[in-house]
């Protein structure tokens, strides 16, 4: 079972309370309510902890998030109306949420499912994703390089930037064509590395609803049902529009096990750590109610650095994960966005910290995105490999939250002061032999050295 009363929900876009513009709604509803729930539910961050160990706090964040979502609703930019959900409606959706889905097929079929805090049975679901643009001429090879990774349970492939020499532009034929090319490349890449039916979340190149729909094709493109995943965004903050609702409708009708892409901005409309944690948790509820999404991808990020690996944001992801694991049946993943780039020691440290902060909190790793998400070709499977190996090792060790926090504090000392400094590293072409799709020796040596350093800190790698 899983409740999504699709047409009743879509009708809310036409019936809800009217606000002239989003700014008015922000000032009159959003901001006062976020301040209220922080206070009423006593949510506080101590400024130091990285992995939360306070179950009561996690529960209060959940309660605050649910209260906030019911109070504020979702602003529709196109209709200027707020789509509000009653407590009864929210409870119905949350109770009936499916806690597991079979995704992919054949030898790459996997369970995507709810995990618990310090989970002893259910390993993390490893979603590899650079979340970056790659040059069109290497796109298929880059997909193959990622797909080769042994721990991969699913892939969100790199994006294509250009089509026929022109930059892929939103709402134009170049975007539609680039989205189709992305989907075609990915299918070919899967067959060529022997993973034809591994679950892929597609198509990142398609920003618009029309490009997403154009790329959906069982023969050559994005596949229906459990074979491929999709994503629909919540716009910042607590906002949607008809293009997003169109996507949700298409994904539901196409049968995909699709997710809700949500990233509250630390320092933005929700304020500091506490407000952003509540808002990010509320987004998971929102996606289920508004879009009928099957899972959520959480990427709360820093307003200034556009990354998810600062101290407060790691804490936020840990407390959000615990709030969800303790209080809901909702599946979610945690998105790593690092400051540094490939072949830098800093990137490895950031990967390790994000993995450790989220695994023992019940999360699932999605990564690794690098370089503040700014540059083309600046991500490689090698740091993703490291990231997912750390997460898997944390699970295999049955690392507790307290143990994870201790290691994370030591790792934070390695890179916290470096965050403001631009450190963008190398391109995939520099780190990888793009013919054989393997890392060059120099960078593989670095990967092994970083594993040794992390082992010395207490992480027992699986292999």
């Amino acid at each position: 079972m899983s409740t999504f009363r699709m047409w009743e929900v879509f009708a809310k876009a036409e019936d809800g309370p009217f606000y002239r513009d989003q700014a008015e709604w922000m000032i009159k509803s959003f901001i006062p309510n976020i301040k209220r729930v922080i206070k009423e539910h006593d949510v506080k961050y101590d400024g130091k902890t990285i992995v939360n160990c306070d179950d009561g706090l996690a529960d209060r964040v959940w309660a605050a998030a649910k209260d906030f979502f019911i109070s504020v609703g979702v602003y529709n930019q196109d209709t200027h109306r707020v789509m509000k959900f009653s407590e009864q409606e929210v409870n119905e959706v949350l109770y009936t949420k499916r806690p597991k889905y079979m995704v992919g097929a054949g030898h790459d079929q996997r369970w995507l499912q709810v995990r618990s805090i310090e989970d002893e049975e259910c390993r993390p679901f490893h979603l590899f994703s650079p979340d970056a643009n790659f040059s069109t001429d290497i796109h298929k090879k880059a997909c193959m390089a990622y797909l080769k990774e042994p721990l991969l349970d699913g892939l969100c492939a790199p994006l294509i930037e250009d089509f026929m020499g022109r930059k892929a532009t939103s709402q134009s034929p170049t975007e539609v064509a680039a989205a189709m090319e992305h989907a075609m490349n990915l299918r070919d890449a899967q067959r060529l590395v022997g993973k034809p039916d591994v679950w892929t979340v597609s198509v990142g190149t398609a920003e618009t609803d029309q490009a997403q729909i154009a790329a959906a094709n069982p023969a050559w493109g994005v596949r229906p049902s459990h074979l491929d995943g999709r994503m629909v965004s919540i716009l910042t903050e607590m906002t949607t529009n008809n293009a997003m609702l169109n996507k949700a409708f298409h994904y539901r009708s196409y049968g995909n096990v699709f997710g809700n892409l949500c990233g509250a901005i630390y320092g933005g409309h929700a304020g500091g750590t506490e407000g952003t944690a509540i808002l990010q948790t509320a987004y998971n509820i929102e996606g289920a109610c508004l879009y009928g999404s099957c899972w959520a991808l959480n990427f709360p990020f820093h307003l200034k650095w556009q990354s998810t690996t600062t101290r407060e944001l790691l804490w936020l992801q840990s407390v959000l994960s615990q709030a969800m694991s303790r209080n809901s049946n909702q599946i979610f993943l945690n998105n790593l966005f690092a400051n540094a780039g490939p072949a830098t020691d800093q990137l490895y440290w950031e990967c390790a910290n994000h993995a450790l902060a989220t695994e023992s909190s019940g999360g699932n790793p999605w990564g690794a995105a690098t370089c503040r998400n700014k540059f083309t070709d600046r991500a490689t499977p090698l740091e993703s490999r490291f990231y997912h190996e750390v997460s898997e090792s944390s699970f295999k060790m049955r690392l507790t939250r307290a143990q994870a926090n201790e290691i994370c504090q030591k790792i934070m000392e390695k890179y916290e002061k470096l965050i403001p400094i631009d450190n963008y590293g190398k391109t995939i072409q520099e780190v990888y032999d793009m013919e054989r799709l393997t890392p060059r020796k120099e960078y593989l040596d670095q990967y092994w050295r970083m594993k040794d350093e992390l082992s010395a800190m207490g992480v027992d790698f699986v292999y």
Partner: protein
Amino acid sequence: MSVEKIRQYMVDGDGESAVVMVKDMIAQGTPARDIMAGLTDEMAVLGQKFESFEVFLPDLMVAGDAFMQIMDVLKEHLVAAAGDKVRRTVVIGTVKGDYHDIGKNIVGIVLQANGFNVVDLGADVDPVAYLDAARKEKADAVGLSALMTTTMPGQEEFIKMVADAGEKGKFLICVGGAPTSVEWAERIGADVWSFDAFEFAAKLKKLLG
């Protein structure tokens, strides 16, 4: 009644109380420019606190909202005098096809805090609308924000359009947003790229005086 009290009302987001006090003080002979100077100073303080995250965007927004309510009352009393610094005008917006506006909103508030006159076109702005606004407002600069790689071309499109219209050089063309970079700005021929709103305000002050 005092300028200090009006500053506090503004920080608290209590535009209504501030407006009442402003009207009373003006009626009793307080120069509008003195009140304005106090408010601009307070917005600058808030901007600095926001940069270091001592306060956050909601605090800036409620103060900014109150600031605009007060300005609606003050502007009819403000008469430019000889030697007064001219307020530079900046047109801002998020490019066509892009609905993300938080970066643009922050830029607007920080620019206001730094004494600029800001004309905010909102999100999903057609390039023609930017040009029309720049002409109408006699803008000194136009700022285009993009948050996605597929909407960044809107920045390049505007620059080409301005050149085709023979208006190149009449105002600064400034680009920004999470996926942009100084390399992108140089590639498309923008005049200014900034990492964040604060760097943008500082650059504009230096370039425009």
